């Protein structure tokens, strides 16, 4: 049974026509279901849990990448629930999943190619693509239960813990970097150099890449970590991979 969760911004008039096309297409494909709009009055968790109890086995987020990152952590905590996504605008996550925009995404849902993918966990939060450490100063990563630690020599490196990252990584070095099905996260250290007009730029040719399953991020002072560009978590933080935790509908053009 399909259940569609619309983000609140879709109430705007400019989305009426697109939503109508999507709903008609879903009916044509025979995968229409209950539609509910997000609101401040009810939490996403309550809404999803209620519908799972009612028999929904496929939850589709309709909106943008922010919608996706809000909904997927709730889906990940449910067992035997499949997650889908209909992006209403150009979306980086949708590109990685091989899902086109608006009504064309309905055909992907109908084809129902399901992948079990890894997700990351930092303290009590889940992240789908990456965890960023904006300021590497005095930050160290303790891995393997503290048997070894990794730190930036210059304290200026850009640090990411990636599951499925879409920020620049030198994939010429490793074809398998940031594969969401490998049971690993990658700690990526990218040094900064000076680009045009004195702006900082990432020197991807000198990246360090560490495949890890679990690590602890510590720092002398409290540092903010940013999960999926949205959620802020403070150090100390324990980061681990949850292997094949999320069932998700993907397209043939996916990047993994």
């Amino acid at each position, binding site marked *: 049974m399909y259940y569609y969760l619309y983000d609140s911004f879709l109430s705007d008039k400019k989305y009426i026509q697109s939503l109508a096309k999507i709903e008609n297409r879903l009916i044509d494909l025979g995968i229409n279901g209950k539609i509910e709009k997000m609101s401040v009055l009810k939490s996403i968790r309550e809404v999803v849990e209620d519908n799972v109890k009612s028999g929904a086995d496929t939850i589709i987020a309709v909106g943008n990448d922010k919608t996706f990152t809000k909904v997927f952590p709730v889906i990940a905590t449910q067992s035997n629930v499949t997650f889908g996504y209909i992006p209403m605008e150009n979306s980086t996550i949708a590109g990685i999943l091989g899902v086109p925009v608006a009504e064309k995404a309905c055909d992907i849902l109908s084809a129902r190619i399901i992948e079990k993918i890894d997700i990351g966990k930092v303290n009590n939060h889940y992240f789908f693509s990456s965890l960023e450490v904006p300021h590497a100063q005095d930050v160290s990563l303790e891995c393997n239960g*503290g*048997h*070894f630690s*990794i*730190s*930036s020599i210059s304290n200026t490196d850009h640090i990411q813990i990636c599951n499925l990252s879409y920020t620049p990584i030198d994939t*010429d070095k*490793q074809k398998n970097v940031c594969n969401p099905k490998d049971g690993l996260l990658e700690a990526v*250290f990218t040094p900064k150099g000076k680009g045009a007009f004195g702006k900082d730029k990432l020197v991807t040719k000198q990246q360090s890449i560490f*495949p890890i399953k679990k690590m602890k991020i510590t720092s002398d002072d409290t540092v903010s970590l940013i999960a999926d560009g949205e959620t802020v978590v403070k150090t100390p933080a324990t980061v681990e991979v949850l292997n094949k935790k999320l069932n998700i509908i993907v397209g043939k053009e996916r990047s993994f």
Partner: protein
Amino acid sequence: MFKNQEGETTEKETETIIGPSVKVEGDFHGEGNIVVEGQVIGTLKTNRDLRVGSNAKVKADVEAANVLISGEVIGDLFIKEKVELKSSAKVTGDITTKVISIEAGASLNGKCNCDQGASIEPKETILKSKPRNGKTSKPEVL
């Protein structure tokens, strides 16, 4: 192993890259191939291949299947198959391996044990089997 020239890495095989901007301290055990371009202090182990770049500084005991060294290593090496020292390599420590290749210009200060027929044992096993104080391990007969 590492057939490409210095500065290039073998695609699909390399798994851990310790770049020039990073320092690793402690007991580092990798699962796959390792490329070191930065600093490592402690111990460095892998069951696969290890490459130490020309700007790398390793102050660690090293265990690997094969190793190619272009930079500085201070520590003992226990390499199951082959050690390759490039002309810019500086190694201070003992090497135990089956096969060694040393380019002109490489620096090696330490003992070199090469035996193609031997099975290379890790450091802990060798230390346990050595007799203490010159005595045998057999009990004295009274």
